[in-house]
């Protein structure tokens, strides 16, 4: 489903290497953690996967798409196959929780009736049925991240990508979010989680790809957080 083939990414005209010859595959329904220190290349992999950046070398595939060859105009339609969750939530501050989640369906041109039916269901699933009308600044960090997860999965994407989703959260809310991601995975959605949180990775007992200075140093089916 997701294939990275000999992918390298260099910045500053080749002075800085973010990724070096990275090759891996992710099958449908998998839960994969990308582990590594800050700057190891986790976020670069995510940026390349969602088409926010292009590799210097190699190819990135998502389903039938060769992501590195997509034009700016093709990206919006491609991104509707993916749900992304960020460390800083990236919610629209002028929209309520309901509107933030509904927005992902609205941009896809889905009918209003479907939106009105689906959004409360998903917000209920993430435990925010009573906070639909609240704006992001009226929600806690954990609640904001749950809104972001609801938004990421509302259009039933094939894969949910979470880039350090627990980075700004306390341990209680961290495990709440991890449980939510596991639940999404159990429902059949592929989950790609980038994190440097040892506790999170060890508690999952799922596949772990460990990165160090832009290279894959370990890829284990039931991995632990082990740094070089």
């Amino acid at each position: 489903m997701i294939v990275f083939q000999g992918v390298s990414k260099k910045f500053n005209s080749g002075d800085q290497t973010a990724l070096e010859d990275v090759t891996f595959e992710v099958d449908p329904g998998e839960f994969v953690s990308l582990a590594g220190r800050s700057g190891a290349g986790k976020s670069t992999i995510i940026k390349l996967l969602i088409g926010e950046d292009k590799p210097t070398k190699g190819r990135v595939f998502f389903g039938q798409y060769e992501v590195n060859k997509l034009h700016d105009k093709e990206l919006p339609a491609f991104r509707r196959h993916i749900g992304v969750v960020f460390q800083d939530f990236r919610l629209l501050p002028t929209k309520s929780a309901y509107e933030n989640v509904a927005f992902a369906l609205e941009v896809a041109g889905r009918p209003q009736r479907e939106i009105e039916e689906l959004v409360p269901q998903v917000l209920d699933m993430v435990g925010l049925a009573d906070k639909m009308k609240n704006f992001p600044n009226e929600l806690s960090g954990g609640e904001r991240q749950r809104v972001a997860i609801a938004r990421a999965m509302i259009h039933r994407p094939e894969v949910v990508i979470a880039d350090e989703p627990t980075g700004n959260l306390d341990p209680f809310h961290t495990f709440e979010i991890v449980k939510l991601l596991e639940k999404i995975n159990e429902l059949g959605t592929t989950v790609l989680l980038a994190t440097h949180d040892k506790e999170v990775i060890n508690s999952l007992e799922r596949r772990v790809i460990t990165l160090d200075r832009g290279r894959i140093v370990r890829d284990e089916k039931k991995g632990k957080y082990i740094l070089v």
Partner: protein
Amino acid sequence: MFTIISRIFHFGFKNFWRNGWLTTVTVMIMTLALLVFSWLIFFGVVTSRAAASIEDKIDISVYFNTNTSEDEILSIQQSLEGLSQVQSVDYISRDQALAIFKQNHAGDTTITQAVNELDTNPLEASLNIKAKNPSQYGAIADYLNSSDLSQYVDSVSYTQNQSVIDRLAKIVKTVEVGGVIVMIVFALLAGLVVFNTIRLAIYSSREEIGVMRVVGASNALVRGPFVVEGTLCGAIAALLSLIISAPILFAINPYLNIFIPGMDLFQYFLSHIVALFFYILFFGIVLGAASSFVAVRRYLKN
């Protein structure tokens, strides 16, 4: 397609309302810019009226020898009217000239008595000529001074007043050209100020645009609401600038009348209010929408 368009308008209206202070500041700056634009229109009206009033004061007269017959003068009048530079030619016969002279000196008994004692009318018939453009008087004077007419013509007033006429013509031209340059410069400045204000407003939304891109919003859906917001700001600013202009025009109108007699700018404003509103509205909407359209473009990559 209809769903997307209706959502673009829906988001645009909602953002306009929810952005509160940012919207208020943008509308205020656009109002100032449109005030400049509307006052440039008034400035254009004032300069063209001023130029017309100067132009109206310029004419040349050709005086004919007393032995020239009326038929000959009328035929010269006809030939003058045939010239492309000539706007109008008025014939003043010797009798009319005398009547005007007497009327002008009605209070001066010495002159009146002197004229009455004369057996013949000493005044010459004349043609008063107005050119379409003040710079064309020279060409008309040359025609009048040509050898064909020299037997009839006694004098041409242009020859005596040439330097004054030329200077007035230059003033008229300078006022007109200067007015156009000032209008262009200020319209550009107003446009740039608005563009930068909208650019800053959109810069503050760059993260929001990033989120829209990540959830798969098309370029049209990202850009559309900003263009709608810019259009709304422009439309409201247009209305405000007219509302602000009205009392200012009313207050300065009497003073303007002193400089340019017969100039009633407030009346002009009232009689042209619909056209003015549409001009300013058009400028405001185009400025708001185009600025937003261009300003969002840089955030639509990746």
